[in-house]
């Protein structure tokens, strides 16, 4: 009965447009007041302890790395490189968009930062080349969802922080699915390009291509530093993120010379503010999740699922459909922090690998970034280009189909996810 208060009040407050963090605390307080046997001081205690975690520190650092790349001229170098690699295929700049986002994904951990950064460079370029704005906006949005699946990744850090699953394993597990997303999106671009008669931009001359590649070499060291550092065991994911930040600062101040100290200061302040928007929710989820667990909600949900089926593939199907629906209605981080602890019980009971599930969950939630009414990437692209939500959604349809196909693939062929972590880090 009391559990209805916890869930019902949360839904009510969310519907009334409460800040998500306050809605979670508010629901918890209502529950505590009605029960009356737990002292209210747990509110302050659980909320503070909710962010007292070294793993979560990777969030501002990966944010910062992405922001520095956008402002320090690094993103532009990536676009040049991608142009040299795939500009000559039919639908050239479309493929450039996908490849840029795949490389960017190896450095930044946030889909929304990727969308804003690559969109600012690529959409004007595509417009100049004659691509309709709706196409470029939809494609940049869809391609940016690769960001958190190819490591590093903020959602993996959050998932790992909540469940205790190794963030390194999750990072490795995301590699193959992320590449698949890129391949399928490029397939979709090719189909659209052929049907609408988009042409190729033509290959660059050899010297131009070499020049772009040469200029981008320092940038390509990012993934090497981050992933190499983590998998060789030299640094933790959090520390790797810091090393990436320091490298980005050096690169953009000393090498490309596009960042001043003044800029750096305002980037730091902006990133801290944007970090707080997410981590304040994680803090409140520390309280809310604890109460949900006390009420036995995870177990009850597990029983409900198990009463329908005990087959892992049916469970995964149900969870995926549920997440896709919730992903349309709710904000990604909020969903991740609320659902992860609730679903873990179910996942382990039916014997699904938690690394596999983490990657499936993340890819699923990334699709939610593109869907109205609540999709952060959708809104970034719409405000960046001025197209309507409806146009974006219509144009994004084929790309979303591509992403859902990849989701299906990695859901039902777990090897695609868990092969690499097991190969590198053992069983």
């Amino acid at each position: 009965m009391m559990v209805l208060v916890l869930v019902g009040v949360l839904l009510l407050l969310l519907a009334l447009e409460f800040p998500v963090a306050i809605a979670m605390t508010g629901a918890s307080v209502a529950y505590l007041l009605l029960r009356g046997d737990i002292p209210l001081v747990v509110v302050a205690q659980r909320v503070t302890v909710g962010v007292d975690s070294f793993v979560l520190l990777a969030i501002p650092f990966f944010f910062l790395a992405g922001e520095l790349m956008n402002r320090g001229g690094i993103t532009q170098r990536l676009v040049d490189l991608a142009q040299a690699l795939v500009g000559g295929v039919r639908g050239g700049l479309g493929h450039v968009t996908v490849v840029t986002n795949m490389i960017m994904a190896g450095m930044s951990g946030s889909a929304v930062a990727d969308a804003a950064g690559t969109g600012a460079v690529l959409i004007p370029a595509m417009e100049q080349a004659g691509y309709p704005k709706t196409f470029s906006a939809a494609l940049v949005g869809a391609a940016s969802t690769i960001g958190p699946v190819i490591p590093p990744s903020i959602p993996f850090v959050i998932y790992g922080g909540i469940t205790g699953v190794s963030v390194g394993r999750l990072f490795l597990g995301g590699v193959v699915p992320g590449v698949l997303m890129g391949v399928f999106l490029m397939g979709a671009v090719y189909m659209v390009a052929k049907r609408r008669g988009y042409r190729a931009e033509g290959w660059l001359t050899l010297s131009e291509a070499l020049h772009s590649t040469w200029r981008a070499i320092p940038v390509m060291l990012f993934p090497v530093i981050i992933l190499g550092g983590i998998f060789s065991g030299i640094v933790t994911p959090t520390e790797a993120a810091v090393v990436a930040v320091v490298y980005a600062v050096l690169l953009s101040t000393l090498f490309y010379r596009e960042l001043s100290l003044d800029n750096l200061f305002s980037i730091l302040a902006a990133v801290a503010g944007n970090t707080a928007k997410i981590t304040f929710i994680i803090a409140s989820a520390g309280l809310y999740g604890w109460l949900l667990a006390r009420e036995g909600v995870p177990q009850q949900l597990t029983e409900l699922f198990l009463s329908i089926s005990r087959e892992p593939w049916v469970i995964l199907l149900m969870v995926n459909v549920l997440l896709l629906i919730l992903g349309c209605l709710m904000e990604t981080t909020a969903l991740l922090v609320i659902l992860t602890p609730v679903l873990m019980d179910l996942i382990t009971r039916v014997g699904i690998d938690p690394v596999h599930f983490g990657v499936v969950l993340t890819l699923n939630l990334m699709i939610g970034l593109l869907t109205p009414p609540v999709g952060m990437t959708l809104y970034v692209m719409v405000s960046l280009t001025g197209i309507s939500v409806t146009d974006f959604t219509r144009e994004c349809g084929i790309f979303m189909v591509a992403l859902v196909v990849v989701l299906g693939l990695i859901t039902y062929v777990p090897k695609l996810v868990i092969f690499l972590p097991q190969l590198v880090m053992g069983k």
Partner: protein
Amino acid sequence: MRTPLDRAVHWALATTLGAMTTIVFVSVIFRYVLNRPLAWTEELASLLFAWITFVGAFVGFRSRSHIAIDTLMVFLPERARRATQRVVDAIVLCVLGLFVWQGTRLCLTTWGLEFPAMEISRGYLYLSLPVGATLMIIAIVEHWHDSRRAPAADAAPQAGRP
């Protein structure tokens, strides 16, 4: 409209994030290059992270850009939506007030406990919540004040950046 408080928070956030970055980087250098791991760096960085979380939330409240879900409220007529917004704000203030009250209590009761490596009071961690919540309360009040003077500033909440 930027108040001195806005500037102070802006400055504090940038400095804290900069310090956090430096601390973690230095700890990597000490452990991996100098082979002399520092015990206190993780504790201090996590402590600063809590402060960034709660003080940084001021920014979201100040500019009304915290993450909220407007899926249903957009269907309300503008006036009804504004009226609801006032009620919501009042309840938000109560929750924040609870943070200040219970956070201060927690801070006082834990003042005698210490972080194992840093050997400073754990109260510095718990202090971040009441201080941050106080700032958030000020942010809401300031926002009311601003929007009374210039109603156009009361824009719809914009997207956060996960």
